[in-house]
């Protein structure tokens, strides 16, 4: 039994309110020898839409894939609704709908065959629901997946994930390759799903402006570590911007350069006289803090 599973024995109540957990999770890839994740502790509450934000290579996909059971933790563990994917993969997958970064569909098969494939793999797959959703989106069921636009492919992948009826959706940068309109459509489906069924959504992205509209929770990952986990409104309200070098060091999260501006400090403060950061500035500050060259201590973050 893994560490995560052992620790789950005494935390049934917690698992009722927490959809996704990572407990001391570290992942090192054997080939590269790099740590993709290092001592990650994270809890995603049920019914929330959480943005998982970080630069490329920060470890977002690794974290999501570990919840999916695609990656085996090097240390620590993860739980999905209290279940460790390494102990009970089927039990975990029953709770998860997943859209991967590549949204890889079967290029040679029509869209409708993807529904049949999903139904063949999962007895409770809602074929009619998925078909209806695709029709509403105007995606031709007879069109081959290889000839769909990036946005349509992402929407098909999302409809397949939604067709599982899983209470938790893991969306691994599905917006990265989409144009603004396609991103908007995609996020609308996510939002309506949350409104209809109260699903928990974890949306990984490095485009902050997109997640701002739909997410209520924010997790910032940088250099394999979680540097911030908080409701978005609290996170923004609890930070201020200051000119570089003008704040006590214990308040400083990081110093970063704003586009076309002077170096700016992100500080933990509720001082009403200081400017409130935008979500993008908040994220940039925490990403800057995660850089090894930045000497600012961020332990504890804003959790």
């Amino acid at each position, binding site marked *: 039994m893994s560490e995560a599973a052992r620790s789950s024995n005494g935390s049934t109540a917690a698992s009722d309110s927490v959809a996704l957990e990572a407990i001391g999770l570290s992942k090192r890839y054997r080939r590269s020898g790099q740590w993709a994740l290092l001592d990650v502790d994270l809890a995603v509450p049920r019914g929330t839409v959480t943005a998982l934000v970080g630069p490329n290579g920060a470890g977002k996909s690794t974290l999501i*894939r570990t919840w*999916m059971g*695609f*990656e085996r933790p090097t240390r620590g563990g993860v739980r999905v609704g209290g279940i460790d994917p390494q102990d009970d*993969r*089927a039990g975990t*997958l*029953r709770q*998860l*709908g*997943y859209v*991967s970064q*590549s949204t*890889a*569909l*079967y*290029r*040679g*098969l029509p869209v409708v*065959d993807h529904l*049949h*494939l*999903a139904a*063949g*793999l*999962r007895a409770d*797959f809602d074929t009619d629901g998925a078909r209806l959703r695709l029709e509403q989106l105007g995606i031709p069921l007879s069109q081959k997946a290889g000839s769909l636009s990036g946005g349509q492919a992402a929407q098909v*992948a999302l409809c*397949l*994930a939604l067709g*599982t009826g899983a209470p938790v959706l893991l969306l691994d940068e599905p917006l990265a390759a989409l144009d603004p309109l396609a991103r908007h459509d995609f996020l609308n489906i996510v939002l309506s799903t949350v409104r209809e069924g109260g699903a928990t959504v974890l949306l990984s992205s490095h485009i902050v402006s997109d997640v701002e509209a739909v997410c209520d929770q924010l997790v910032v990952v940088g250099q394999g570590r979680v540097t911030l986990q908080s409701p978005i409104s609290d996170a923004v309200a609890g930070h201020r911007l200051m000119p570089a070098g003008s704040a006590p060091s214990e308040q400083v999260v990081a110093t970063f350069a704003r586009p076309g501006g002077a170096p700016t400090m992100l500080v933990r403060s509720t001082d009403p006289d200081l400017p409130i950061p935008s979500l993008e500035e908040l994220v940039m500050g925490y990403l800057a803090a995660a850089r090894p060259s930045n000497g600012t201590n961020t332990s504890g973050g804003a959790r």
Partner: protein
Amino acid sequence: MIRAAWLTYRMHRFEVLFSVVLLAVFAVWVWFISSQMLDLDIPGTCWPRDVNGDWAQPGCNDLMKEFWAISNGAGFPRTGLALLAPIVGLILGVPVVAQEIEMRTTELAWSLALRRSRWLLARLLPMLALAIVGFVVLGWLGDRLFNALDVGRQSPGLTEVASRGPTLVARGLLALGIGLLTGAIVGRTLPALVLAAIVVLIWSLIAVPTVQGQMYDGRAVWVSDTDSGWREGAPPIAYLGGGYFHTSQPGIGGEPGVRVPEDESLEPLIEAACGPYPEVYDESPEVMAYEDCNQQFWGDIQWSHVVPASTYGDFKLVDMVLSLTVGGIAILLTFVVVARRRPS
């Protein structure tokens, strides 16, 4: 299930079409050649040759020449039969997992499949069914071809074990299993295809001949070439000359096809040529004459190390069981690999 099979075929339409066309073209070709030979309907009496190597019975020469002309053209199909099943096995086996990993569709499929074994079964069974049907047809055609080639002689050879009947089916399934496993481990179709082909080649050229060699050593006897080939009245000893067995009807060593120990096989030959060993003192003229005869006998006759044709079934069975076992283990291991590996 039918829909799942149809989807699998559509996913692998190139491999499926290529294999079906290859098998069909080859099957028609083998059928045609074997039919040509069988249609000659050569009587058994035409097969024996006289001491000059000509066909002994009058009226057989033209028939036999026509037969040999056709059978000479059957060389490529004979080789092709041995190669085709493993090639098709690899083509059908390697991409089942490797292609999906390569195209990253495993990310989608494995996120939907509560049990990956179910996903693998849905992909594997249609390919396996297609392969089995194709190999069984090919094996039957192989038997037909070799029976046509050997009509009247019943001369199966070790080199053709893999080109006919159930052994061909087993060799094809072995290649499919190894291809499947290699594809699941490597996760890239082309490198896996090359690697699996090397493994199958090593199996066919080293492992099987090694096993055959050990079996052969336990069964082989020495016989004279004079008596081992097809001659009227030649001994009932199978003959492995250039890789071929020959069995004939009456002769030494007991019942036709029975395994004959070396001593028993030689003794009657020497006794027939030199008579029994004289029961007199060593330097007697009778003994000297016997020794001279014996010496001449050994000097004149070429000896062949052969195995009885009755043991041909042993070779087929062992080849088949080994191939199916290794292929089956490879398929089972693929389930373990798929259950544990990353989707990309």
